[in-house]
């Protein structure tokens, strides 16, 4: 696996290809961003959540349950402290993969801020890239 972190986005090419899609259902999410290297190219908190976190925590952030569970992030009091979500995104926890190597400090801050202000979470104190940088140590 190369970790060269080349940043390139397929969005423009996709916009052209959307017209060719076999299934109209795919258009439901509108334009999508795809990463090409080992780092995510999504930058905004909303885009990072929708393209990454949603895979497990789902569109409503309520998680899901099979043989085990993905925890709900909706109205989640664990998000009150800024350090907890930053540490989880950067370092992972149990089966949750660490994303610190695939996201910049600014990206981690963006997605944490998005989570802490959406899905029934209303924490107004924003985290910064500096906070994330410190959590990496």
């Amino acid at each position: 696996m190369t970790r060269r972190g080349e940043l390139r986005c397929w969005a423009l090419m996709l916009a052209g290809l959307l017209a060719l899609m076999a299934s109209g259902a795919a258009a439901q999410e509108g334009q999508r961003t795809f990463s090409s290297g080992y780092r995510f190219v999504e930058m905004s908190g909303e885009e990072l959540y929708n393209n990454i976190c949603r895979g497990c925590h789902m569109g409503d952030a309520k998680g899901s349950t099979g043989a085990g569970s993905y925890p709900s992030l909706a109205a989640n009091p664990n998000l009150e402290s800024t350090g907890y979500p930053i540490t989880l995104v950067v370092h992972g926890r149990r089966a949750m993969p660490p994303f610190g190597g695939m996201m910049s400090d600014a990206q981690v801050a963006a997605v944490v801020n998005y989570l802490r202000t959406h899905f029934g979470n209303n924490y107004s104190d924003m985290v910064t890239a500096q906070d994330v940088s410190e959590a990496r140590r």
Partner: protein
Amino acid sequence: MQEESLGVTRRDLLSLIGAMAGSAAMYHAMTSLGFAAESRYQGAVKLEGDPKGASVLILGAGLAGMTAALELRTAGYQVQVLEFNKRAGGRNWTIRGGDTYTELGGATQNCDFQPGLYLNPGPWRIPYHHRALLDYCRRLNVVLEPFVQLNHNAYLHSSRAFGGAPQRIRAVKADLQGHVSELLAKVAQQGKLDEALTREDQEILLQALRSWGALDGDYRYSASLFSSQFRGYATPPGGGLAAMPAPSEPVALSDILKSQLWRYLRNFSSYNFQSTMFQPVGGMDSIGKAFAREIGDIIRFNAKVTKIQQNDRGVTVSYVDTTTPSIQNSVTADWCVCTIPLSILSQIPLDVGPAMQAAVEAVPYAGSVKVGLQFKRRFWEEDDAIYGGISYTDLPIRQIAYPNTGYNHSGRGVLLGAYLFENPNAYEFTAMAPNERVARAVEFGAAIHPQYKSEFENGIAVAWHRVPFTLGCSGEWSEDARKQHYANLCQIDGRIVLAGEHASTLPAWQEGAILSALDAITRLHQRVVKI
């Protein structure tokens, strides 16, 4: 391999052993000296000694759990298995037409593949050195066929090179080898290797470069019928009047280098992917079904484990039947072999010491996505002469893998239209609805095979973080976690021992699951017969 500074070389020693003791002893000696060892598998496990009716509860009916069940029952144990799914096999799984699959989040897919066509959403290939798995296939009568990893006529594709036109693997490989050989031959002829090699060795090197790189009489890599034997012809040889072949023109070294296509060639040369590879005829789940034919009668399906307790007398496992989840059940046994993936086990109350508990919580689970696509015809064979194998691309689908069975028939076929493993695209595809994963795979794949647009019929997409029975593809051990926790994960804790691919150094491979189970039950058995 470390060189040992013995007074006698290993070769001398081996000759001596061979002369004195015959070839079987020599083979054994070679194996213990580090040569000829293709596998850690020691042959069919022998659990000698009477377990005196001891009982073992096995959690999980994947390959690890069923290996343990089969061997422990044969050794005289009373064995029961609890399995979350309503089928045996776990990640050893095949999806066919008529199958329905509901992922976490509730999206349900109905597979519309034509009868006989399938997708292996999990493991799909077996290296020749996975001797334990191969031995179980032989013993359980699972019929194998070749899995084609390297097809010289499949494609390497970069959206940023050659105007986006896919290149034949054959040509990229020949051109890289040819140009590198020409360069090295030039350096040798300029006397620049005099310090590194004797004159005689340089002469042999030049011969080797000519042979390996398809160089001409002047040690140049040029358009010729000789180089075309490697990279392919502009006009191939034929019959009759106009039969003369015409050579093709090599691509310039700079273009090959800048294209980055060389980076895919390692997928054909690394140990895990060398020929011969195999797949079971009809789908990977033939293996799980074969195990289930042997021990299916002792598996309780739809059993979701909720608690694992032990004391000095035995193990008690609580579970609910997923069809009647309000009722708590429990089962007891003297011992427990737990193969539940750590993604799930780390959430279940578990009576083990802090070292094993920390190990259970130390392993994140990889993201991985596979998309199967059915097309009206096998255009990759009919139009592109690609029979099996894999094309690699820098597009987010990363791979297109062609079916290694049913060749050269008219009619429908199923491709693996995307295979993502632990990279950003795996997460991005997981976050999509299944129908969008399929649509994106079609859209990206059309850049390599334009026939996609008119020939696509239906597809199915499995994102492993959304799979209800694993919550991830496989244990993704970091080096640090391995050092700190791996031994603690594998130790017997009281009456509980863990097994599965996560308790092996072959992560995500079925061989790892089986070897870990064999190791776990061997140690467990030693403890039982000693008591």
